């Protein structure tokens, strides 16, 4: 039987760690060298979402923009889910969080979306708790592509939502 495949897209500013999150999820590796993604890289990973159900996640790693509206429309065709990533240490990457999320939820009303604050290893949990008002939208996950913290959880949570 052919497994169901679902296309998900990672969006967000450049340098927030989208490629690193995918690499951590797919290959369990991390490098701190920053390599700019241009255009799109596509990777695939089989995800077991229950004892008898596995799906293929087709993960589109898009070039980061400071404006989400600049994303090439064709890339978004047939998308089943979004992951919006920002960098918890760099305000420029979450200044437009509210606008970007509103834009996505308006344009793709029925497409599941996860909001993710990455690079959480660079700050303490207390810092995130005390400064949660800094982010206009409450993130679904605080991840660290470096340590792998919450990375699998985040992808799998989205995968489960895509099936239900």
């Amino acid at each position, binding site marked *: 039987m052919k497994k169901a*495949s679902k296309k998900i897209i990672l969006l967000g500013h450049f*340098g927030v760690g989208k490629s690193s999150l995918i690499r951590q999820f797919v290959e369990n590796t991390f490098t701190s060298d920053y390599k700019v993604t241009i255009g*799109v890289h596509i990777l695939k990973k089989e995800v077991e979402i229950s004892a008898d159900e596995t799906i293929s996640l087709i993960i589109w790693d898009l070039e980061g923009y400071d404006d989400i509206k600049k994303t090439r429309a*064709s890339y978004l065709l047939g998308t089943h889910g979004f992951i919006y990533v920002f960098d918890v240490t760099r305000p420029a990457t979450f200044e437009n969080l509210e606008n970007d999320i509103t834009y996505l939820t308006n344009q793709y009303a029925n497409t599941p979306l996860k909001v993710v604050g990455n690079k959480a290893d660079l700050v303490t949990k207390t810092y995130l708790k005390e400064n949660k008002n800094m982010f206009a939208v409450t993130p679904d996950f605080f991840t660290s592509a470096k340590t792998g913290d919450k990375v699998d959880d985040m992808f799998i949570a989205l995968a489960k939502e895509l099936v239900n």
Partner: protein
Amino acid sequence: MILETYRGTYFHPRTQFITIDKSGNVLESDDVLFSLKEGEDINSVSPFFEGLSTYFDVDEDNDIKFTCVHLEAIDQKEYTCDIEFKTFAANQPTLIMIHDFSDHYKYYQEVAQSRNESVINSQILELKNKYLKEKEDFKNTFIANFSHELRNPLTGVTAFCSVLEKTDMSLEQQDYVEVIKSSADHLKNMIGDILEISKIEVGKLALNEELFNFHELIEMLEFTYSVKAKQKNLEFEVNFDEKIPRYIEGDKTRIKQIFENLIENALKFTQSGKVTFAIHANQSRARKVNVNIRVTDTGIGIPTEKLDSVFNSFTQLNKSSKFAGTGLGLSIVKGLVELMEGKISVESEEGAGSTFKINMNLKYPINQEQTSLDKKSEMEKKNFLSKEKYSVLLAEDSELAQMAVLKILAQEGNFFLDIITNGEDVIESVIHNEYDLILMDIRMPGTHGDELTKMIRSLPVHNCKTIPILALTANLYDADKKRYKKMGMTDIIEKPFDESTLLKKIYKHLK
């Protein structure tokens, strides 16, 4: 003909044409980039196509273009391509065109890499600066508040020492009071130093220029430190260049502080020999005389490797308890010299002694003969008072400060004193009584003293517009001082104050 040969040699087609059926299986491929067998699943080229499977069996004319897609061939060679996806009506198979633009995109990637890196780096730098500034601000606010809290109890100690001194005491008790007084003075100086360095570091210290007798200042220093040096069996020599104008325009207190710090430092670290204080005039022009100032000692000296750090805050080279201090003296001196646009340097030989050198300009008025200073002492005014008894309001919540003021004024015998401990009651009292002077604490419960002053100034009763209102405060930042003035306060009495400071200020403003 030759053109065709060239084309044959140099032209490599970089576009692959593939047709697929409705399930995504390859019908035909020219294999320019990827080799595909007939019937092979197009998804084997890249998972890219998996996301598009819903478009495989579309029966209408459609053209979807994707730019800059990364594809990997079986030999792991990477291509960066534009992909066109064409579907047709009338049951024609779907056409996929893959254009290889790897070279072009490689260049684009390099440009994007350096652009993004520089944007991110500048954002990080900006954040770091912001963080450092916040840290610095926190430190300075902390220091200001902390020293404020220390000054209040210290006011109690100093003021009551003055009161205590005037009571009948045995010689032994007098000695004890002396010890308390000098310890309190020492503590006061240290707090002052810390506050001062924090002000210098945030650029909040402003110079107060006034005309003063420079020669007199040097004579005073010579007298004071000759006595101190003698106590330590040291020699204190002053070489003063009489060419330097008698009257100087500058911040007398700060200039004195620079000299005192350097001389005291020299005396502290010298066990035998002498300390020399020399001031020489260089050229004068445009009402400014350039001077070289040297303080030379025959003391313990400074190791060469530590010469660079002598002016840093909290650096005390000699950690032994023999030389007490905050380690702030020299950094304050440097801060002040630089504020006066001068330069300071040090030369030293360990075991032989050190020389601190300052080069700076001193401003002076052209007509020295006609310059005179009004030196009427504030205390002398006491003899010209017009009333027998003056009515003074003290608005202050600290009991220690209340008692101190009460004792000091009671000894003088010229005053009626009303004490109010709460901001709200002050206005009430001012309306019902005609005071000659108000002593106003700033940090009071209810309304702060500066706010109260503003209210009093706007009251349409008695002498509210003109009555002297003196602030009692340990908030000595220039911004605070300016605010108090703006709110209508006449003068400021710094906490901790002693008897003579308090009385001097009060007599200065009484009519």
